[in-house]
């Protein structure tokens, strides 16, 4: 599809544990259009977060991607992330795709200040721009006659960098602790940028927060810093992995509003991973429902809530607690993915299960416009 910024096709991922092979993702098919927010919902352990990590190709061992394709549109060209070298992936991570973590406190390194951690991304991906700015500043200083001997030396290094960033002399220089100080002006510029980012995150008094350590920040503030890190290079795709689960309810709302506003401001597309249907209704344009490692239904957010087609989606919506009605839950438990059920993985909990459901797995098919379902109830083969 032409306007897909990211598309995942038949993604398979296994975890090789001591108990056996966990088939965590079993043919995930998703697509993210430019500028939209795609919600991924499902129970714990259905593969939501792992899908997010796979897009960045940073699935920690023992997880291993076994097959499939992930296409990302970079400057108008589709590239398959799974076939790329690490060097290229490192440039994509953080610049084109970035991730907001679930627990902001553990996603920040305790030994560095909030500013340091934003500066790290900026220096990694926006070096050229920062060096240009640093040069401008040095020129100003030289013009006003304040520049010292060192500043002039830094200027030479920066100019050299702009000419040939991979020059041997620079590579050697960047490894020597004291000579490396030429990064100072660069980092200073990056710090200004970091302060600006924090202000965009609606953090009061960003000049002070920039120098604060993670343990000095409240949960909401920490999450804003994490979002600032993720958005520092205005990525095309932002993956938010349950960013509000560990926060207070009031702070949750602030963060949700923030993400929604920033999405417009940075013109990113968002994948929002959550298990909270309320948040989905609030945030998303389209929803993909996942169950036991595959996408069982995906459709526009209104379609999902008004006309859910897959039995699992229906059950999920019915199990949202409502005041005055008895509490309902889905019968049975999530199957073990070491020995997943044959056929459709939901068939042993499904009210409408047929014989064929236990035998073969249904294909995901477009039953209505933009409404995909993976179920024999809505499948011509099922008759």
């Amino acid at each position, binding site marked *: 599809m032409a306007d897909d910024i990211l598309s995942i096709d038949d993604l398979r991922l296994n975890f090789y544990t001591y108990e056996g092979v966990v088939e965590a993702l079993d043919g995930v098919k998703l697509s993210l259009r430019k500028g939209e927010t795609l919600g991924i919902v499902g129970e714990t352990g259905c593969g939501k977060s792992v899908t997010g990590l796979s897009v960045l190709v940073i699935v920690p061992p023992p997880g291993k991607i076994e097959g499939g394709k992930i296409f990302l549109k970079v400057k108008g060209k589709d590239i398959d992330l799974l076939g790329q070298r690490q060097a290229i992936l490192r440039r994509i991570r953080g610049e084109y795709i970035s991730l907001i973590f679930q627990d902001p406190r553990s*996603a920040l*390194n*305790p030994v560095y200040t909030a500013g340091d951690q934003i500066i790290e991304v900026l220096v990694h991906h926006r070096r050229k721009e920062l060096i240009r700015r640093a040069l401008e500043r040095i020129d100003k200083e030289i013009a006003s006659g304040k520049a010292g001997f060192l500043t002039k030396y830094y200027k030479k290094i920066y100019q050299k960098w702009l000419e040939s960033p991979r020059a041997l002399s620079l590579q050697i220089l960047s490894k020597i602790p004291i000579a490396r100080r030429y990064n100072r002006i660069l980092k200073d510029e990056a710090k200004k940028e970091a302060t600006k980012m924090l202000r965009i995150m609606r953090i009061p008094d960003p000049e002070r927060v920039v120098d604060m350590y993670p343990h000095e920040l409240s949960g909401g503030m920490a999450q804003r810093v994490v979002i600032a890190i993720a958005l520092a290079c205005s990525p095309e795709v932002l993956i938010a992995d349950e960013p509000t689960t560990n926060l207070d309810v009031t702070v949750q709302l602030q963060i949700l509003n923030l993400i929604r506003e920033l999405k417009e401001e940075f013109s990113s597309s968002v994948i929002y991973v959550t298990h909270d249907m309320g948040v989905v209704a609030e945030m998303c344009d389209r929803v993909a429902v996942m169950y036991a490692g595959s996408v069982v239904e995906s459709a526009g957010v209104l379609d999902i809530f008004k006309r859910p087609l897959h039995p699992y989606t229906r059950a999920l919506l019915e199990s949202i607690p409502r005041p005055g009605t008895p509490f309902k839950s889905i019968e049975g438990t999530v199957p073990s993915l070491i020995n997943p059920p044959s056929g459709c993985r939901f068939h042993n909990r499904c009210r409408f299960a047929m014989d064929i459901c236990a035998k073969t797995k249904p294909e995901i098919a477009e039953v209505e416009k933009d409404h995909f379902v993976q179920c024999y109830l809505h499948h011509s083969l099922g008759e």
Partner: protein
Amino acid sequence: MLDEFKFTLKRMRKSPLSIVGIVIVSFFVVIAILAPVLAPPVDPRDPYAIFHDGYGPTPRPPGSPILDSFILSTGWKVHYFGTAEGQLDIYYGCIWGARTAFRIGVLVVAISLVAGLVLGSISGYFGGVIDEILMRFTDIILAFPGLILAMALVIALPRLWPIEFGVIGIVAASFIVPMVIGFFYPKLRGKRAVILGFAIVVAFAIPYVYVLGSPPIYTIALDLNSLDKVLIALALVGWPGYTRVIRGEILRIKQEDYVEAARAIGASDIRIIVRHILPNAIYPVVIMASLDIGSTVLLAAALSFLGIGSPLGYSDWGQMISYARNWVWTGFENPWQFWYTFIIPGVFIFIFVLGWNLLGDAFRDILDPTLRRK
């Protein structure tokens, strides 16, 4: 970073034991630095050699006058702490022994620490086969009692270590030539140049050296005295401990979200290890190192006492005690007549080790991340 340092100093001031530790250690630092002032060497060419006042076997008590006219001419008048067997001056040995103690303690710990940091990081972060090989290797070393292994190594290590500049030159040239060519041919840069260098070493340099013999350009032999051998042996015994501790810490921190976050912003493996994991993993080894400086000196003293440590007459506390071996017990009428031969160097060792232990304990309290800022 500076704030952290100030905070550490503030915490340190509040703990009295750490102050005692710092005072003791800095006392020895002063002694070591001022050794030429406190005990001017009789033979300036070899200041570590303890001067001896004749060769008489029986130790003489503190305050005995110096008899040798040459030593008298250098300004020495009295044996402040008496003399040991062979009329070695105990005061001189104790003062210059402080330098030996620091050299052994700090160098051995520094070498083991660096080796542990590098190998532990590789082992813990990358895991797999490298981890398995390194860990089994540390197991082998840890399976032997440290002192026994150190003894065996001191005896087994050769005294002369030939350094053949011809061979080094051939190997270096194998790498430098591809790099120089790389300046003109961009296709041969970076990794490719290194690989070509390896290929030249394997295909050309090694056969050349083994078949034709090493080229006769500048072969010097590094002459290790027995103290250097002690140093090498103790470092060889010490590194597995650090490697294991660092590996364990890295395995723990590798699981943290912020490491994954660093990967998610595109940081490279080396950057993740150096910038994100090691600063969080370093505290236990800092504590371990400061405790180990004391115990390493103790181990070296034990080796010297057994007679395989420092060379004869070298300023070393352990050796001074070994000179007292025959004079500890002198019969029931006057049991500890020669107490100064072993008590005085013993006190030096004891206080030195105590100082480092107190400092290590203080570090443990101050740097423990679970107690910090509570």
